[in-house]
């Protein structure tokens, strides 16, 4: 059977993309995005965009079908370990986001850059808002307006995250496995 991500450009004589790398790269990059809070960036207020979630949405938009619909659950679990949010928050938000993105994909199969950015911005904003609501339910008492700077930063950075994902995608299909 022909592998789905094999095409004429990426085939060299006796070289082909590695299946392991091609499958693992999206998962690993999203998990690295979730690890950003483990960096020694100690902030007084929430400011760092939710990179794990942004990478997930970008992967879903750039390569639909590469991450399964249920990917939100395990990746959300990993994010919950490091985010400081109540456990289960990202599992719920990310799972719902994957379903919503799948529906958008079915409704608008052809999209432009601006549409992708708009959808990504809405996704990130709703993710941050829901996260703040869940965090407050678990004992915080933060005014919801506090996430505005973080949301603006995340929206502005979203196209860059998309570029980054495109770069990872090229790396994913580099032919470095021997056939």
């Amino acid at each position, binding site marked *: 059977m022909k592998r789905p991500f094999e095409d004429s450009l990426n085939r060299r004589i006796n070289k082909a993309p590695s299946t392991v790398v091609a499958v693992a790269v999206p998962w690993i990059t999203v998990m690295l995005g979730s690890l950003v809070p483990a960096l020694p960036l100690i902030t*007084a207020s929430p400011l*760092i965009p939710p990179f794990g979630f942004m990478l997930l949405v970008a992967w879903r938009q750039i390569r*639909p079908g590469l991450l399964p619909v249920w990917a939100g659950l395990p990746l959300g679990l990993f994010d919950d370990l490091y985010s400081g949010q109540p*456990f289960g928050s990202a*599992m719920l938000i990310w*799972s719902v986001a*994957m379903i919503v993105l799948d529906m958008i994909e079915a409704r608008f199969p*052809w999209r432009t850059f601006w549409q992708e950015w708009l959808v990504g911005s809405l996704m990130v904003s709703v993710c941050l808002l829901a*996260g703040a609501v869940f*965090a407050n339910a678990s004992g915080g008492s933060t005014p919801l307006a506090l996430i505005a700077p973080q949301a603006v930063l995340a929206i502005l950075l979203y196209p860059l995250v998309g570029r980054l994902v495109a770069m990872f995608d090229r790396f994913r299909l580099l032919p470095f496995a021997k056939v």
Partner: protein
Amino acid sequence: MAPSSNRRSGSRRAQYTTFIGYLVGGAGAVVGAGFLIVSIVNPGFMSTLRGVGADVVAPASRVAAEGKAEGADFFETISGYLAAGRQNAELKREIAQAKVRFVEAEAVAQENARLKILLGLMADDPKPVVAARLIGSSSASTRRFATLGAGTRDGVSVGMPIRSPLGLVGRVLEVSDSTARVLLITDGESLVPVRRASDGIPAFAQGRGDGTLQIRLINLGINPLKRGDTFVTSGSGGLYRPNTPIAIVSSVTTDGAIAHVLSDPANNDYVVVERMWAAGASDPAQNADVPGAEGQAPAS
């Protein structure tokens, strides 16, 4: 762009695949919601798994934290050259004032020691548990947690207060083998019994999530607070040592004030883990004469 493989076709098989995808995704959302409800009811839920996760990445975070400190030093050195002359004059003036203050403080300390002997109180400063770095924080969440690079193997246990040379930072919430999760005083769940340094007006300092604290006065009436008032911990509740500086008032509200935290966790290189105050106190009656002793103990 829609790759041909992903375009919706009318085939039965494709429809089943889509349906099963939604079903599994929906199940994931339900599982997530269940976990969320459990962890809202019981915040310690899955803390073991979180601790293991933090332990795994701690070595990398430690290296990054050292790099960050060195990087900051490097830039400070450069900017120090640019402002050297002006700063030199300023510092000379400040040190002259500080010398006078130091002599005064020494006199006060001596007087304090004499009075304590008169009262028969022990003036013991318990040794800190350990000094460590804050190696991470919940920088993307509205909750304010930090990860401390020391855990049970260094003697850290739940409830211990954390402070820096500048003031109180927070307290330990969960401990794993080599890391600990710290509830910063700026988190909305953190409630610290405080008093005004000048005259001991009792109050509570609650975090607001943005680096400031809401000062809530215990005795309501005319709000006596002013801009620039300094607050220290009162020691009631038995968790935090009294007289640890905590915040300075930046604006006054109708029922209290908004205060800036003195010890910004972003600028701390090392923090010190202290023992719980009540556990190290030689005389339980000592707490009784601290203003606001009727305050509740912060939940551990």
